[in-house]
């Protein structure tokens, strides 16, 4: 191995977060290769239950012959640490959500996102190599005039979901109603309001015994979350549940109980939850945008240009048409088999060898 250690830095760390999961998977890969590896994150951005998995960025001390991998997604103190580090450097671009989508709800956050997009070219030039977790993200970097961006698709570890479902959550989901699930941050780019409106059509006109379960933190944009609550209330939708936090066991219970996973997100660098849903045998309905088609890889259902009523009818068909459902599930099982057969270690070693 050409590196004495391979460390990673990121803007935040939390259980279930896609970037955190990838950082853990890379750290484990490095350790399997016999290389010391740690994850460093600004101390105040490490979730309290993750203090053993990630170390404080303030404790990062680069040594000779090391490699530093920077997971780039937003402006944070990690960017400055990356700039200063004398180690060989790789930036992994996970996409930065366009600030415009946040402006109505939180203009300081919109400014941070725009700044992060503005800094991307400089950060990428400071690196010895740029990796992107989807071809969509790689194309964004290439559009800045940077060549040689390598695609290293976001790592999915089925083992992270290999836990027994939370019995309390499962008990709460044991009713006969049809369950439509969304998992993701409650952020404006996810367009959860479009999902709620589609569900209103489905619930009021097609299947009264149904519920929409929205699992995801509201902390990224509380004002957007307030709008969603208000919108669900004005549509008189008691059947919409907002679940702000789910443990891995809780998340497994939601996936296992779901009849359909749906997302109307309009900006995604990859979208790990669609892969998670596929691995749990839940039909996936997603907007054909950004890195989502890569995450789906020819499986599930992709839509574009659908009105809320059309989306509701599509949900209905996917839940009630067993032939269509079978076709979708078969494509998803094939997708998961391809993912499981992915030679991750060889891909990673090839990327390291190219440095």
């Amino acid at each position, binding site marked *: 191995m050409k590196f004495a250690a391979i460390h990673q830095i990121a803007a935040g760390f939390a259980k279930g977060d896609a970037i955190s999961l990838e950082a853990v998977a890379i750290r484990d890969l490095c350790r399997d290769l016999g290389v010391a590896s740690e994850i460093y994150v600004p101390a105040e951005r490490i979730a309290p239950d993750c203090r053993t998995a990630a170390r404080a960025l303030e404790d990062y001390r680069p040594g000779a012959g090391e490699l530093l991998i920077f997971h780039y997604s937003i402006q944070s103190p990690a960017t400055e640490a990356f700039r200063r580090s004398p180690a060989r450097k790789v930036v992994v671009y996970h996409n930065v959500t366009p600030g415009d989508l946040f*402006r*109505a*709800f*939180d*203009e300081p956050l919109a400014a941070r996102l725009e700044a992060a997009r503005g800094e991307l070219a400089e950060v990428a030039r400071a690196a010895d190599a740029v990796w992107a977790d989807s071809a969509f993200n790689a194309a964004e970097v290439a559009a800045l005039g940077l060549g040689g961006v390598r695609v290293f698709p976001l790592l999915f570890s089925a083992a992270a979901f290999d836990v027994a479902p939370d019995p309390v959550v499962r008990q709460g989901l044991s009713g006969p109603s049809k369950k439509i699930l969304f998992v993701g941050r409650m952020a*404006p780019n996810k367009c959860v*309001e479009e999902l709620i*409106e589609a569900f*209103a*059509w489905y619930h*009021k*006109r*097609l299947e*009264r*015994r149904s519920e929409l379960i929205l699992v995801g933190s509201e902390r990224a944009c509380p*004002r957007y979350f*307030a*709008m*969603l609550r*208000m*919108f669900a*209330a*004005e*549509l*008189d939708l008691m059947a919409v549940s907002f679940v702000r936090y789910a443990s891995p066991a809780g998340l497994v219970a939601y996936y296992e109980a779901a009849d359909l996973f749906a997302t109307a997100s309009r900006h995604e660098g990859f979208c790990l939850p669609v892969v998670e849903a596929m691995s749990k045998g839940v039909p996936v309905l997603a907007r*054909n945008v950004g890195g989502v088609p890569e995450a789906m890889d*020819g*499986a*599930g*259902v*992709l*839509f*574009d*240009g*659908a*009105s809320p*009523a*059309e989306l*509701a*009818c*599509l949900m*209905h*068909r996917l839940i009630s048409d067993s032939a*269509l459902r079978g*076709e*979708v599930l*078969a*494509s998803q099982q094939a997708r998961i088999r391809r993912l499981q057969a992915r030679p991750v270690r060889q891909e990673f070693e090839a990327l390291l060898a190219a440095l």
Partner: protein
Amino acid sequence: MHLTVAGKDRSGDLGVEVAAAAAQLQASGSVGALAPEHSALVLKAAADRADYLRRYLGLLGLRHGVRTADYYVPRGPGWRGRIAAAMKTALWKLLRYQHDRIAFQQNAVNELAIAALEFQREETERELAELKRRLALLERERGGPAP
């Protein structure tokens, strides 16, 4: 509508069927209870956080009431479902007789709390405008911006 199922373009068959079913649904009316200008979605057009707050309080002012009249009773399948729904409807009418008095009081409290928020916001804006005016005056007198 473009539709891809299991990697195949199904816009021409499934997409058309879904669009026809949706048109049938829409012909029977909308699912929203409010006019678009009163919908929570107007918040998406806010210029900034201050504008968001103004719009939010305006929308909140329209939503102070606990509604009891249009309570929906779900109907299960078969004759058992019909009987259960009839019983629940009768029970709800009976409960409303007492419940509406409580709802009336709660609605009044909600409305007063929202008005208090609005008064507080107006007062804060007035104080801020006054402070900005006095700061500008001081800076003019000093001949430069305050440190």
